[in-house]
């Protein structure tokens, strides 16, 4: 029915374009207004085609406006109008672009074509835009062809190449032309050449063009293979095809009877239930499969049910048939070239995937490192178990959010937020050290409990202040997007920024500990507080500052983490156990240890994820198991302190 109506419509459109060049876009739209108003990709095609081929000079502009949600229906007279913004509703223009006043929003039904319809419009606009003076329109046209490659696109594309001035667009056009050629060109040699011209290019578009060439279907034949088919491979039941699959194919092709399923058997038995028994087998004992088989066989013998297919029949049926995968593409030269090209590409893709995985691992490692670096100071250097470390990260992220409320420029706000987050968490850290931790240096296990208490209190306070909704923390525009090496290897700029930030902190930490007076004093106090005190160092002050710095760095980490993940009061809790493990695995008291720990944990997690891609939880589970085992062999971590610095 649908096809018929579409046919009629197309015929109608053909008539229009045929004898009435003067037929304008307005009439096409008005006469199909029901279709246009509730536009669906399934039915709107003929209307768009009619518009595109109407010859109306405004057609391209109207189609563009429709696609950009700039076309509306005036409810008062049911006419289509072009919409523009105005103070109180819409500024209206008729379809020739003449101003016809304004209208309140209530009077206008704005047309909202869905993405499918917009795609059709874009395809229709290709012919207008491919040589449009505006380069963005040309780019749009190319994108439209690329997203929906058809044979029809090839000719106009080729025609437009000669006149293209823009080097970038020219390259795009040429690539697209080759992609279309390899699929749609009538000449086999041209297609093969197009395929070979790419070499081992790993572009997604190329793979997207090549793979459909190798699509196959399964066929079952009696006797020899069909002579004219482009055969991919023969399937052997029991080897490359399971017996069950093979028999299903036969069944689907109506070459063999269906096998008896357990459900059918059950239904047949119930249907033949007589006097509490089926085929002489009592109902009560039909609770095993063997008994049911006996009963069914008895029914078969009595001729009350159809004979079930036996194993021998299945085997002989399979032996009488051959199974093939046949390429849908008829030309063997093309499929040959395509499969050779794809083999080369998949090798390249494999290498690139490994590189991408390494980047992902590195990125995850830098996030773990950033989350753990504050802990490496408070726990690693001072030996304080700070369970509230996660909340410091959260506070840092919320600081970023608050700053963005006041400073709308994202770049400026991030630059303000980083030091401010440090200041806020530094202050909280110092206060916490003064009030609580100072009293517990001799009882490290109890620090754990006290800071856990602080952690849950802080988390709830944050929740009371900021609510439970996730808050936006938006990165500046120059951190949007990703660094794309090719269609396989890419990494978002935000992750690169985090990586850089992690390196900066590593350098800062090394500088602080190795090159400053404070660092010297910190090292002295951690190694031997009494001796340090007798040298004129105030251990209280040093402890306070060290703890403050560790907390402050957690705050900065919070801003960075908030940029790529959610900002909620539970942001920090996700990282706390991982952070502790990072420090413990790496080796306590050593920044290189934390780095090694983070690299190992991040890399390992990604590697396991790669082995089991659909299950991220498994990766985390096995990673932790690995760490538990790893601690057995290196109880002091990857990089263990030696000698006196090791403490006990």
């Amino acid at each position, binding site marked *: 029915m649908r096809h018929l109506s579409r046919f009629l419509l197309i015929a109608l459109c053909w008539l229009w374009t045929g004898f009435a060049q003067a037929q304008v876009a307005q009439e096409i739209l008005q006469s199909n207004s029901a279709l246009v108003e509730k536009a669906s990709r399934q039915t709107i095609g003929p209307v768009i085609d009619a518009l595109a081929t109407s010859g109306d000079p405004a057609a391209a502009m109207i189609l563009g406006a429709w696609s950009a949600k700039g076309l509306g229906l005036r409810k008062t007279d049911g006419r289509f109008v072009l919409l523009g913004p105005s103070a109180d509703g819409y500024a209206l223009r008729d379809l020739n672009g003449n101003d016809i006043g304004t209208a309140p929003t209530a009077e206008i039904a704005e047309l909202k074509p869905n993405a499918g319809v917009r795609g059709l419009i874009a395809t229709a606009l290709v012919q207008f835009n491919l040589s449009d003076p505006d380069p963005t329109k040309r780019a749009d046209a190319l994108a439209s062809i690329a997203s929906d490659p058809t044979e029809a696109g090839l000719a106009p594309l080729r025609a437009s190449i000669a006149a293209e001035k823009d080097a970038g667009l020219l390259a795009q056009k040429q690539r697209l032309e080759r992609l279309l050629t390899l699929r749609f060109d009538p000449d086999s040699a041209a297609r093969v050449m197009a395929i070979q011209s790419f070499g081992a290019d790993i572009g*997604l578009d190329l793979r997207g063009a*090549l793979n459909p060439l190798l699509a196959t279907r399964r066929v079952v034949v009696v006797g020899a293979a069909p002579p004219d088919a482009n055969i991919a491979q023969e399937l052997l039941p029991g080897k490359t095809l399971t017996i069950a699959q093979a028999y299903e194919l036969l069944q689907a092709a109506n070459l063999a009877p269906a096998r008896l399923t357990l459900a059918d058997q059950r239904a047949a038995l119930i249907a033949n239930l007589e006097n509490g028994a089926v085929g002489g087998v009592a109902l009560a004992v039909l609770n095993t499969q063997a008994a049911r088989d006996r009963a069914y066989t008895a029914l078969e013998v009595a001729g009350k049910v159809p004979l079930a297919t036996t194993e021998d029949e299945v085997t002989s049926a399979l032996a009488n048939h051959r199974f093939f995968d046949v390429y849908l593409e008829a030309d063997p030269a093309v499929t040959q070239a395509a499969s050779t090209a794809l083999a080369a590409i998949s090798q390249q893709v494999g290498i690139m995937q490994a590189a991408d995985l390494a980047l992902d691992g590195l990125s995850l490692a830098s996030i773990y490192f950033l989350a753990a670096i504050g802990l490496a100071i408070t726990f690693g250097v001072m030996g304080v178990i700070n369970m509230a470390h996660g909340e410091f990260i959260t506070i840092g992220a919320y600081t970023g959010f608050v700053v963005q409320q006041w400073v709308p420029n994202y770049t400026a706000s991030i630059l303000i937020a980083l030091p401010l987050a440090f200041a806020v968490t530094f202050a909280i850290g110092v206060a916490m050290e003064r009030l609580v931790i100072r009293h517990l240096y001799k009882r490290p296990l109890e620090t754990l409990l006290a800071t856990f208490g602080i952690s849950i209190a802080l988390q709830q306070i944050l929740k009371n202040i900021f609510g439970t909704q996730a808050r936006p923390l938006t990165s500046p525009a120059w951190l949007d997007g990703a660094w794309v090496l090719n269609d396989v290897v890419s990494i978002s700029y935000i992750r690169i920024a985090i990586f850089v930030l992690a390196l900066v902190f590593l350098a800062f930490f090394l500088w602080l500990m190795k090159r400053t007076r404070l660092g010297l004093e910190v090292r002295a106090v951690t190694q031997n507080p009494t001796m340090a005190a007798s040298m004129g160092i105030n251990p209280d002050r040093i402890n306070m500052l060290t703890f403050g710095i560790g907390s402050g760095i957690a705050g900065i980490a919070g801003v960075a983490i908030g940029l790529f993940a959610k900002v909620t009061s539970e942001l920090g809790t996700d990282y706390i156990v991982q952070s502790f493990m990072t420090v413990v695995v790496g080796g306590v008291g050593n920044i290189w240890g934390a780095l090694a720990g983070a690299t190992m944990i991040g890399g390992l997690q990604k590697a396991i994820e790669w082995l089991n891609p*659909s299950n991220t939880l498994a990766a985390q589970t096995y990673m932790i198991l690995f760490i538990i085992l790893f601690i057995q062999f290196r109880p002091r971590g990857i990089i263990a302190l030696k000698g006196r610095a090791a403490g006990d």
Partner: protein
Amino acid sequence: MARPKRERLMKLSRRALLASGIAAFAAPRIAFAQAETIKVGVLHSLSGTMAISETTLKDTMLMLIEAQNAKGGVLGKQLEAVVVDPASDWPLFAEKARELLTVSNVDVMFGCWTSVSRKSVLPVIEELNGLLFYPVQYEGEESSKNVFYTGAAPNQQAIPAVDYFLEELGIEKFALLGTDYVYPRTTNNILESYLLSKGIAKEDIFVNYTPFGHSDWSKIVGDVVALGADGKKVGVISTINGDANIGFYKELAAAGVTADKLPVVAFSVGEEELSGLDTSNLVGHLAAWNYFMSADTPENAAFIAQWKAFIKDDARVTNDPMEAHYIGFNMWVNAVTAAGTTDVDAVSAAMIGQKFPNLTGGVAEMLPNHHLTKPVLIGEIRADGQFDIISQTDPVPGDAWTDFLPASAVLAADWKDLKCGMYNTETKTCVQLTSNY
């Protein structure tokens, strides 16, 4: 049967009890013996991972109750909200539900978000004959005598969204991404079998589950993009729940995954979730709901104004589950008025056939299977965090048991005539009266 005796005893020894050391815990029970208000339990997580979504629903309930009280309450009595915090902890949902029913003696409960929390509450309310209004789109495969499902069943959200993908966008390959729990698992199961029936090959359906609160999305997004390598048009169907969405959309935006190349339709992302991120890079991605804040009706405008006034924040948004509570609450008020009592069985009977206008236009009707009729809306994300409604259907009756899983296709639910939530239409028997949990 022993109840009357107990209640008499309870009154007799009230003084004695107050003297006992545990009075603090038992006292509320006494207080309700002479209660003059109608108690409405609000069972939404105010802390934990689901608080991001559920806190708003608690506020919605408080708003609705306040407005109803301003109108004079129900049956001449004021409504009193009893708010508890099950803290996104599923066992705690069961405990709090039991407390609400037996200690606070609530007449009705509005609550739960995740299906696992509903499954946790189910045995308690079925045992104690409570009444729960569940406002969130869910996986179906259930119809409890004691629950009214005011959110969408799969045929009112998931299936139409997939149809949209197939028919309007011409998607040939599907990535089903979900958070790992009941709703995504069951929904994806239904969708998989639906897609197979639509001729999509099994290899063209990619399924991935992530934990609650997942944040490291780069690899998964990369994998989905790579699905396009065989030249088929790929679409993502996301049943990712809660705050994990934020990291997911940020990663999508960073990877440059635009809606033209790779459309994502989400079933759990609404205005509320989008307010947590910058949507300028997400324009054109989709969500399927039965309500969008951008719906252009006078009822909706009034509701939004009421909400903003109540929450005292002009930036706050409304979303689909809020509408579900709005419809559910008003239907309950009408049912109680019709029944003249808050008795659960009487109200349940009066609920079936209740009609109430949707905020998006049209009328919702409570069906005998305890589901609503709902229009299905598909919206495209706009740069301001709202949705452009690009498709709106006529009201679709909610189907408790999906037609696309062979085991469920034969089941039906009807609490009016059949009095059964799991009725096998082939054998004409009621499979079970209680629900699976």
